[in-house]
């Protein structure tokens, strides 16, 4: 059984196709491990009985040509799943049972995957440490009382702890890449418009994007093949010619031009991050890539602009939670007080903060000074990338300005928490694809990630570069299973 959980997604699929392993054996192995890993608090909702039933059905008459034949998967609890509770980590949705399925999860089941359950996340995906979930903090398997990052913290923790062979998360400002970096896993945020947003609990609609979180780059390519599809149900879905990412993977990156942006060398960046980045540059040179120094001059304005755009969109999106048609309701003496009490009790502190920021920047008299200003800055940030991509194919940066921290370390100061996303946020503002791959460890043995940012819709290029780096890096998490009971 320990063999099963140590297999990558693609290795697991090979064994299913060769009939060396059955879907039931695999599903039961992951369930058994999840039962012993409850202390990590990765799951909000489990669907184990149904999973075993579906695995049994798959073994009896499943289609082995599927891309994910009989593979059990757990997903972030931000994806609506038909008839299974979907909470977004919030009290206000703690009893919500969707009557529809998100497009992205539907693609997984259509390719033969089996749902194990729904993974913990920051409330409405607002957070960088999985400490804002109504369902409690998630612990990272990389160390006791260490945060897994966020907002896809439950996904990252479950993946690193081998409770699911792969997973999907969502990334609005770094919510896939930062937790991947903190847990020694691979996280890919595709180009805005690649993966449908239909049925994903909305946070900031112009930034949200779903993407794979996996054990290695090949698995990310495989998952992207399944979830990246045009969807008429998402008005911002883009109908471009998608690649055959997994089959086309190539480790030949000779002659590729990689940009190194000087503005990412931020004040107070730990030496170990600096040397991780330098080692990445050296490795790329060794692999035949050409290193080019570039400038992204508006980088330092990305985070402040993000903290106007994202809360503004969030305050509009979250206006729907009023206690009328679904979700938690608190009583009040009249309709308005029912709304106010419902939202006051139903939302956590971070969500309330962001709704308030968003309401303020959109309110009469402040719109031009804040929201319009932020959209103009957003244009400048995107222009920086457009300019850089005239001379490079991709950009290499660290994924995060530090390694994982302890639970409780940054909860008192929202701004210090926001700074976690300093390297990931510019990518969302510009709609670009980016991947975080594990590249080293810090002095505490916590993982560190490198981020590659690509041109819009050129995920293949990004996957190829990270695939070739991964081979040379041969990163191993070597977790000691300390959380197993």
């Amino acid at each position, binding site marked *: 059984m320990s063999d099963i959980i140590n297999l990558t997604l693609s290795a697991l699929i090979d064994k299913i196709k060769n009939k060396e392993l059955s879907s039931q054996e695999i599903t039961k192995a992951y369930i058994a491990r999840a039962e012993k890993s409850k202390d990590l608090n990765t799951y909000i909702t489990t669907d184990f009985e149904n999973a075993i039933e579906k695995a049994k059905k798959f073994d009896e008459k499943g289609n082995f040509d599927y891309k994910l034949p009989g593979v059990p998967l757990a997903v972030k609890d931000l994806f609506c799943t038909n008839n299974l509770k979907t909470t977004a980590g919030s009290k206000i949705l703690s009893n919500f049972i969707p*009557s529809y399925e998100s497009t992205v999860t539907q693609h997984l089941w259509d390719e033969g995957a089996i749902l194990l359950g729904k993974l913990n996340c920051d409330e409405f995906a607002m957070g960088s440490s999985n400490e804002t979930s109504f369902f409690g903090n998630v612990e990272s398997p990389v160390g006791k009382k260490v945060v897994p990052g966020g907002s896809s913290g439950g996904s990252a923790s479950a993946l690193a702890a081998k409770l699911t062979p792969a997973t999907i998360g969502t990334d609005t400002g770094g919510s896939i890449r930062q937790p991947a970096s903190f847990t020694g896993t691979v996280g890919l945020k595709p180009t805005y418009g690649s993966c449908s947003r239909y049925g994903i609990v909305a946070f900031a609609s112009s930034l949200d994007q779903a993407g794979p979180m996996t054990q290695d780059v090949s698995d990310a390519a495989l998952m992207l093949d399944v979830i990246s599809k045009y969807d008429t149900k998402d008005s911002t879905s883009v109908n471009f010619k998608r690649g055959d990412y997994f089959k086309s993977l190539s480790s030949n990156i000779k002659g590729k031009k990689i940009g190194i942006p000087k503005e990412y060398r931020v004040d107070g960046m730990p030496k170990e991050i600096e040397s991780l980045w330098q080692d990445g540059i050296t490795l790329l040179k060794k692999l035949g890539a050409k290193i080019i120094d570039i400038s992204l001059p508006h980088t330092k304005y990305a985070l402040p602009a993000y903290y*106007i755009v994202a809360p503004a969109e969030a305050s509009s999106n979250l206006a729907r939670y009023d206690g009328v048609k679904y979700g938690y309701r608190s009583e*009040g003496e009249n309709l*308005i007080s029912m709304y*106010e009490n419902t939202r006051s009790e139903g939302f956590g502190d971070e969500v309330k*903060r962001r*709704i308030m920021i968003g309401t303020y920047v959109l309110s009469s008299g402040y719109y031009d000074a804040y929201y319009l200003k932020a959209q103009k800055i957003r244009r400048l940030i995107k222009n920086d990338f457009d300019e850089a991509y005239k001379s490079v194919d991709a950009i290499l940066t660290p994924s995060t300005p530090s390694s994982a921290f302890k639970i409780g370390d940054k909860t008192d100061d929202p*701004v210090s928490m926001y700074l976690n996303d300093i390297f990931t946020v510019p990518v969302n503002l510009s709609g670009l694809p980016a991947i975080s791959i594990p590249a080293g460890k810090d002095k505490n043995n916590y993982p560190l990630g490198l981020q590659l940012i690509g041109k819009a819709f050129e995920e293949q290029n990004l996957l190829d570069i990270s695939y070739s780096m991964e081979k040379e890096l041969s990163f191993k998490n070597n977790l000691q299973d300390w959380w197993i009971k």
Partner: protein
Amino acid sequence: MSIDLKTIKHIAKLSRISIDDKKAKELEKDLNSIFEFIEALNKVDTKKVDPLTSIAETSLKLRGDEVKTKNIREQILKNSPDENKDFFVVPKVVE
């Protein structure tokens, strides 16, 4: 500039979130530190810059207004916080 307590309470009202004085004071501190951080944007001259309103710079497509999901009325009403099987119920609004 700073956001005072009165403004905090006004924003809370606009946001339809009830807050007490203690919470208002906490939010005053948090929001001011966040806005201090946001003020950095004022250093950038954006007079000649067009706002970026959408990253997917395509026009929205039209589609037929057709019902595709049917017979889920019961399922939807089941999520209603007030147990009345046929309607969504709210506190009385008309005297």
